């Protein structure tokens, strides 16, 4: 190796170490990605914010909670939406990569267990739901309904909704192989609507006229039962940032947390923080 080559390499090495790296994003632009559960909140708040602030440029996309947190760690989004808490693995990975994951709670939610409106069953217990999803209960007649096979619909294993359901209902027990694993709340609700013997679970914001929510341990998911902690499959919804929100991310999250933003949360069927 000649001396000039060596000097050039060392100079380049030093330049890289002391090089001040500046980010060049626009001050009014904001990128959000992640949970499909949080997606309607993020979208409606983005639209309302941009209507009030025409200079703002907010892009929102889904992908799932894992995608939201992975993108915050990678630095490719400003806000990562998640319907679960960050895992220890993600926290360690973020810290090692210089990212301080800060969880901003923006709403409350319940995971509602839903069935087709034609189904006569209206009440289940956590143990019964676990029995259905683990395969030990396979016909509605065993639960007081008509004799028809249960069609199990679940979220894909990378979704935050699945993680919370798995923790609070399944306790780590495997979901039966025959379950349909769908990629979004919307896909689950649509499948339940179209399949008479089906059971699924969605964020409370996706409860509507086309599907029927059932009580769990005698409690129907609602604002009241979530806030008083009586409904057993409740959770908080989050917008993760790298460090405390700053700039455009802070303005946007402040808006989500404002009375106007919290009204949008409730308009979308979720439960506000207060």
């Amino acid at each position, binding site marked *: *190796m000649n001396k000039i080559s060596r000097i050039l390499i060392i100079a380049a090495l030093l330049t890289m170490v002391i090089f001040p*790296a*500046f980010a060049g994003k626009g001050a009014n632009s904001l990128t959000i990605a992640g949970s499909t559960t949080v997606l309607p909140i993020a979208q409606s708040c983005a639209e309302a914010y941009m209507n009030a602030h025409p200079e703002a440029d907010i892009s929102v996309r889904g992908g799932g909670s894992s995608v939201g947190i*992975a993108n915050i760690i990678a630095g490719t989004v400003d806000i990562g939406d998640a319907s679960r808490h960050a895992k220890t693995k993600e926290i*360690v990975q*973020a810290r*090692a990569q210089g990212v301080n994951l800060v969880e901003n709670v923006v709403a409350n939610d319940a995971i509602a267990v839903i069935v087709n409106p034609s189904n006569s069953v209206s009440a289940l217990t956590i143990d019964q739901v676990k029995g259905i999803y683990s395969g030990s209960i396979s016909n509605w007649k065993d639960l007081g309904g008509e004799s028809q096979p249960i069609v199990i619909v679940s979220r894909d294993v990378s979704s935050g909704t699945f993680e919370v359901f*798995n923790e609070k209902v399944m306790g780590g*027990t495997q979901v039966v192989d025959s379950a349909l*694993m769908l990629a979004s709340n919307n896909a689950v609700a649509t499948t339940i609507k179209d399949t008479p013997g089906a059971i699924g679970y969605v964020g409370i914001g996706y409860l509507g006229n086309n599907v029927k929510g059932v009580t769990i341990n005698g409690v129907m998911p609602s604002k009241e039962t979530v806030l008083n902690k009586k409904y057993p499959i409740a959770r908080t919804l989050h917008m993760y940032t790298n460090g405390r929100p700053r700039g455009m991310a802070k303005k946007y999250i402040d808006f989500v947390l404002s009375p106007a933003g919290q009204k949008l949360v409730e308009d979308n069927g979720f439960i506000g923080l207060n």
Partner: protein
Amino acid sequence: MRKRVIFLVLIIMLVSIASAETKLSMELWNRWTYKIVDGADDASTNGFSFNRGYFRLEPVFSGNIKGRFNLDFFSREDSEVEIGEETDSISNEGAGLKIKYAYLDFSNYLWKDATFTFGLMKTYFGTIYSSEYETIDKDPADKYKFSASTDYGFGISGYLPQGFGTYNVAVYNGEGYKKTGGNIDTNMAYLLNLRIVPVVGLEVGGSYVMDKVYNEDADDDKEINKMAGVARFTMLPNLDLRAQYLTRTEKLGDSEKTVNAISIMPMINLADLTNIDMELVLRYDMYDDDADLDDDVEGSGAYDTMIAGVNYFMMRDSKNAPKLWVQANYSMKNYKYEEKDDESEMLVQLRWKFSGVID
């Protein structure tokens, strides 16, 4: 070859049937290599190769049990040859196969966030288990033969509270994934590995391996102790600075030999600065094959390697992991013994990766 293919097909069928969900992925490396020794008129190597590829199955049996099966394949007989190492050809000897991973993870059975792993698994030494081949050259622990990237054994991995780090404890054969059955020494290797992230953007830690290998000539066990110290600094935006110190001591009777290596690797991400998804990588390695021998005398195998590289990412997946990218590296190998000619090498590599899930 036919038996291997049948074996692979059987594995795929069994895994797909038995698991709730299986992720399939493949990654392939197409490479051009140009190597020249200082003072030579012609290149000693100038050619294309399919340097490495793998087919990976990751079955998820339940929320707590998952596995990984990795079949590596390559078109070069000498695909394991190091940069700068003498090789007489890059001729295509046909496809080679080797099993790189075959393990099961059992999570949260022992305690929260702890994973018990059994099978042909990662070796948690230095940075060999977390390397993403940021340079085309291998991780220093692998390159300088401190450790094989995978080995047969079992171990426990987990996280320190509050995300302050990770730990690994493992027992291995100690001889890497290439040796099995009657070829392996009966002594086990014991590994401890710890990473601490005391503050956001700073990671420090180390690994220790204690091993013994029976030496037939001496009719005694050779004691092998390996240590790695690692540090990673990511506090400045877009800069990722990694450093590693490796040492291996081999003791047989009264004789003792120590091998050392140091590697420093800064990387700068240009995406924010230029809107081009690209990173610059520099790596400086110092390798001393015998710490008790002067580096500049005949017989010394000590050398430095400088690598300057660019990684250009053409496509990424939804989690920002690269799917299609080009790596270009220029490396210079400088022997400490002045009479030995230095070597330069240019490598350009196209890597592409794809995956899917079967339910």
